[in-house]
């Protein structure tokens, strides 16, 4: 009796036609259909190049930024970190290295990181390199907590993705050495795409809460800030409408990114506009590595035809 009642109710709700297998089949297609691996090779190479350039550009300031007796001494940094956060002083302690040997230690960590990044660049022992790269990047993140900006966090996140995602299936030494033919699933691309949607959604939302992004003053303050100023842009004060338009464009671009980046019709424009915004950040605010890593992320997520046999790059 109970069974017949149930059947009749499902019939009335038109649920009888739902085929669970096809439902899961669609989910399976959405997440586990196979893609080619070129965009992940691009991600690996891009991440390695950005991190290498960043580390190369910081070499002469290692002691000032990360040293125990740098501008903000290590002990003062340490008390502002949770105990579980990795930092260079932990590694020094674990290895039993005395303070007097700090320069040698810092150089050792630095050159190890460079070596790891070169391995990542060429896709040699990639997962091991990514794991070690993540560990070392986290050490620098912890010890340099007072000096970090967005780019450092995105590089750590990229290492994490290089560790878990299939970044060495093509254009890598590993792919030549081990010749694995394991499939590359779409879910990894989806994760990066959704991650980017969160990045821009929250960036746009939090900017929209203020007033200065709506009237252009935020752009004015950003490009005129002493530390960021690349060019003399005081003339912009004469073009308030341009400043307002730029401010509102940033809000629209970021807040509506999740809405317009998925549909094919708007994808290319939104991708190019986003890459353009990051080029603007690099040129006018000197945040080169932050801009570069986000361009790598965007092109990886949206810039390739990922169908299994396609190799064409969209942008």
């Amino acid at each position: 009796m109970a069974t017949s009642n149930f059947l009749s109710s499902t019939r009335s709700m038109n649920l009888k036609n739902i085929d669970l297998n096809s439902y899961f089949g669609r989910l399976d297609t959405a997440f586990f259909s196979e893609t080619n691996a070129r965009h992940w090779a691009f991600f690996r190479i891009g991440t390695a190049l950005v991190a290498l350039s960043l580390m190369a550009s910081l070499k002469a300031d290692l002691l000032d930024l990360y040293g125990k007796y740098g501008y903000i001494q290590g002990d003062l940094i340490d008390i502002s970190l949770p105990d579980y956060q990795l930092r260079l002083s932990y590694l020094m302690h674990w290895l039993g290295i005395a303070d007097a040997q700090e320069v040698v230690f810092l150089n050792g960590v630095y050159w190890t990181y460079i070596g790891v990044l070169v391995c990542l660049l060429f896709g040699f022992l990639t997962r091991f390199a990514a794991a070690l790269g993540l560990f070392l990047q986290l050490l620098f993140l912890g010890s340099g907590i007072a000096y970090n900006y967005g780019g450092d966090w995105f590089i750590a996140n990229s290492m994490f993705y290089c560790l878990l995602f299939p970044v060495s299936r093509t254009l890598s030494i590993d792919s030549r050495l081990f010749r694995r033919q394991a499939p590359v699933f779409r879910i990894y691309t989806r994760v990066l795409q959704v991650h980017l949607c969160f990045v821009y959604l929250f960036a746009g939302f939090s900017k929209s809460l203020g007033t200065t992004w709506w009237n252009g003053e935020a752009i004015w303050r950003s490009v005129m800030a002493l530390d960021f100023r690349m060019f003399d842009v005081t003339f912009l004060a004469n073009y308030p409408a341009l400043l307002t338009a730029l401010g509102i464009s940033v809000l629209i671009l970021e807040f509506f990114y999740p809405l317009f980046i998925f549909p094919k019709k708007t994808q290319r424009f939104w991708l190019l506009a986003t890459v353009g915004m990051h080029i603007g950040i690099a040129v006018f605010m000197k945040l080169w590595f932050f801009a570069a890593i986000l361009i790598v992320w965007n092109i990886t997520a949206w810039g390739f035809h990922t169908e299994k046999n396609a190799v064409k790059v969209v942008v």
Partner: protein
Amino acid sequence: MKKRTKLLRLVVLLGCAFHLTSIFLTNIIALNAFEAAKNGLPSRSVKLLDAAEKVSQSIPQSIQTTIGFYDTYTGITGYSFFSPDPPFPYQIVVERTDANGGKAVNTMAFNTQEGYNRLTAASNFIRDIKNDTLKDLVMRSVAARTYEKFPETNQLRIITAYYILPPPKAFRDGNKQFFEQHALYEFEKYRP
């Protein structure tokens, strides 16, 4: 499809769901950092922030701790760059005087452009220290490093200041940017 493959795919799906949920919740929780900025925000923004605060308060502490731990090891962070309004830059000005009275004014002296690019982060870090003793220790640390890098320095003044930039219209009308001093720290070389 083999049972093992199905199970593996389920694990991957759950892992990805956890990862993306962490990113989402981290950013909801990060909105609480705007608490101090609420005074200057429009009422609609305050309402939205209050709503976000309620959501983040409803997340159990154990989950917040787990997410915090996970974020630390994966590089996940809040993405509210330059929000809600970019603040007036906080500057650290270092004025060195040698024994002959020669003066040099700089900021923390780095060797690379990228080092200087990180000054903003360092200045904000110092600005946000609430504990006066800790702030004092940090400024002593800056002073110690400066003496080490420039041994000829005798007296040292470290001035923290806000770089006030008038809005475009006021700037056009002739109001120029200026420094508003926040604190002054003076040091003299120790001679035993």
